[in-house]
């Protein structure tokens, strides 16, 4: 891992228009003013509940959605308005649902080979075939799988195909968008280990998005926590899990059921009141204030600044001294 920033977003905003025109125009602020960077060779985890904007962040970063405002940098170059074709070779994505993200009418070989064709990475048919087979082997499949169709595979195998497709163009950076949440528990560890092995072998950089903090903590160097379109806390993995400062992160960690009966009995859970507010109409000021046990009037009036609380540890909260 180097100190060189590979990917960086500054004040990224992604608003979706969801009805109404003119003054009545309704906007969902899916991602609202998010800034972070990922160093080369680093794995940044992104966690949060459904609707918090983690997937949108990942997709906007790849410009699968055009950002409403903000800047995206790749390897020091501003790609917010750039032609993406050369960058698609370097930036790839693995999707959440291995059942929906593979074309059922293409063979596995063609699914993996499509990107090789688009970027003209193979000089001959033989070279193309060879490349496809290398990719399949790399993800634990074999040559006889190349002529089969997605429906012949189990969920875990399909996710391997999705990973082989992402790797086919020899990328530097991969957005892993909840790549294991659709898989059985006994298969999840296989896929996590594979992501880890590939990262080490190929020197990859990941943005690893998931809602399961234990998985994210296992694989990531640093973790960002999102709530209703905002980044609320960002720190090194261990720092975030053991010394979190934001009340939302704390309750999120506390809500995870510990798979250890003796520890579970001793554990006192912080149960948050209420539901996640609608992103159509988020609370004023700090968006977490409606569920926060420490909320004051200041929280309703003023949005907390996302600032450094200790070296490399950022959080957005007015009442950090009280939480501690």
């Amino acid at each position, binding site marked *: 891992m180097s100190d060189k920033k590979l990917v960086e977003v500054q004040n990224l905003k992604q608003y979706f228009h969801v009805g109404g025109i003119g003054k009545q125009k309704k906007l969902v602020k899916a991602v609202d003013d998010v800034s972070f960077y990922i160093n080369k060779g680093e794995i940044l985890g992104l966690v949060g509940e459904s609707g918090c904007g983690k997937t949108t962040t990942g997709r906007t970063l790849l410009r699968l959605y055009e950002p409403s405002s903000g800047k995206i940098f790749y390897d020091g170059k501003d790609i917010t308005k750039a032609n993406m074709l050369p960058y698609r070779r370097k930036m790839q994505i693995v999707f959440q649902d291995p059942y929906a993200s593979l074309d059922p009418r293409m063979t596995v070989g063609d699914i993996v080979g499509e990107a090789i064709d688009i970027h003209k990475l193979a000089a001959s048919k033989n070279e193309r075939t060879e490349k496809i087979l290398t990719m399949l082997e790399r993800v634990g499949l074999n040559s006889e799988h190349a002529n089969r169709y997605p429906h012949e595979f189990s969920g875990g195998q399909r996710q391997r195909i999705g990973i082989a497709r992402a790797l086919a163009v020899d990328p530097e950076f991969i957005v892993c968008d909840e790549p294991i949440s659709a898989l059985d*528990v006994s*298969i999840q*560890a296989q896929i996590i280990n594979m992501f880890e092995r590939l990262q080490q072998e190929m020197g990859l950089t990941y943005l690893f998005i998931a809602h399961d903090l234990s998985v994210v903590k296992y694989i990531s160097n640093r973790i960002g926590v999102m709530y209703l379109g905002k980044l609320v806390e960002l720190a090194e993995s261990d720092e975030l899990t*053991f010394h979190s400062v934001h009340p939302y992160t704390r309750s999120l960690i506390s809500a995870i059921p510990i798979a250890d009966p003796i520890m579970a009995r001793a554990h006192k859970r912080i149960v*948050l009141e209420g539901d996640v507010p609608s992103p159509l109409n988020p609370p004023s000021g700090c968006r977490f204030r409606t569920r926060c046990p420490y909320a004051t009037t200041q929280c309703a009036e003023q949005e907390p600044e996302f600032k450094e609380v200790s070296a490399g540890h950022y959080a957005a909260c007015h009442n950090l001294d009280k939480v501690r």
Partner: protein
Amino acid sequence: MSELLLDIKGERLSFFTSVGEVKALNDVSLQLREGEVLGIVGESGSGKSVTAYSIMGLTSYPGRLIGGSIWFNGHQIESMSEQELRKMRGNEVSIIFQDPMTSLNPVFSIGNQIMEVILLHTNKSKQEAYDRAKNLLELVGINEPEKRLHQYPHELSGGMRQRVMIAIALACEPKLLIADEPTTALDMTIQAQILELIMELRRKLGMSIIMITHDLGIVANMCEKIAVMYAGKIVEYGTVDELFYQPAHEYTKGLLLSIPKLNATVHEPLIPIEGTPVDMLNPPAGCPFAPRCASCMKICLKEMPPCTYLSETHYTACWLRQSEAWQLSLAEGGDAK
């Protein structure tokens, strides 16, 4: 020890599909005592939900019972008529389904759906049922119950809908509550709320609970006994401590080693269970886990292992434990059922 509430004896249930027979439950035996909280864990297709549905008498085409029996509170489910089953469902046994978005009827108000159960199973008048529904909403922690009774499911959030489902399930104070992955569709902080609520209600009302989940964290937090299912069989059963601290079946051990732990301070590599889940159309001849098992022996591929009892409450179906039992001449295994 409290009374036996549920006794499943050698239940066999198959789905006869166009491509062949799927043995969804293959000789499943399970007991539940009054007031007990049992967790059933396993991956998708292992038969957890089918077990629950067969307790409710909800087996439908192309599924068919081909052997065994289920006794609930002294009555045999299989011999009950549809009318008797209707009397039992929602009254003595209730179920909460995984997805609160689809299990409530969108065209009836919340109040209507809660009152339906009460009016069906008791002699209460409409007014009494209405009051009871209001109390139930309060019980499950819903604010402004009067207002909510007149609302429709789409007006409520996922967590609220699951609370309404729990209110419906508890309307007639059932002896047994089956929770079939009740929090899988919910967010982490909402999951914590719902699990807390289920446990609080159990303390208040004292019903037995069967908790079906794939999350080992949830069973560690909530259950007293755990049954681990794999390919339509219970491969291990025991108290929560026995299962977590002395796991006997290789599948259980594998599961415990393959989940990342949040409180780990060193980066210990995960040990995955290799291979792919069983193809239920062509299950292996012997132990269904054998093809993925690191300690597989010759006999495992040929014959299904019998139950080996490791303590009064702990048993497993694994040839390794069986042979250990023989060696120790503790041959209380075999068909000790």
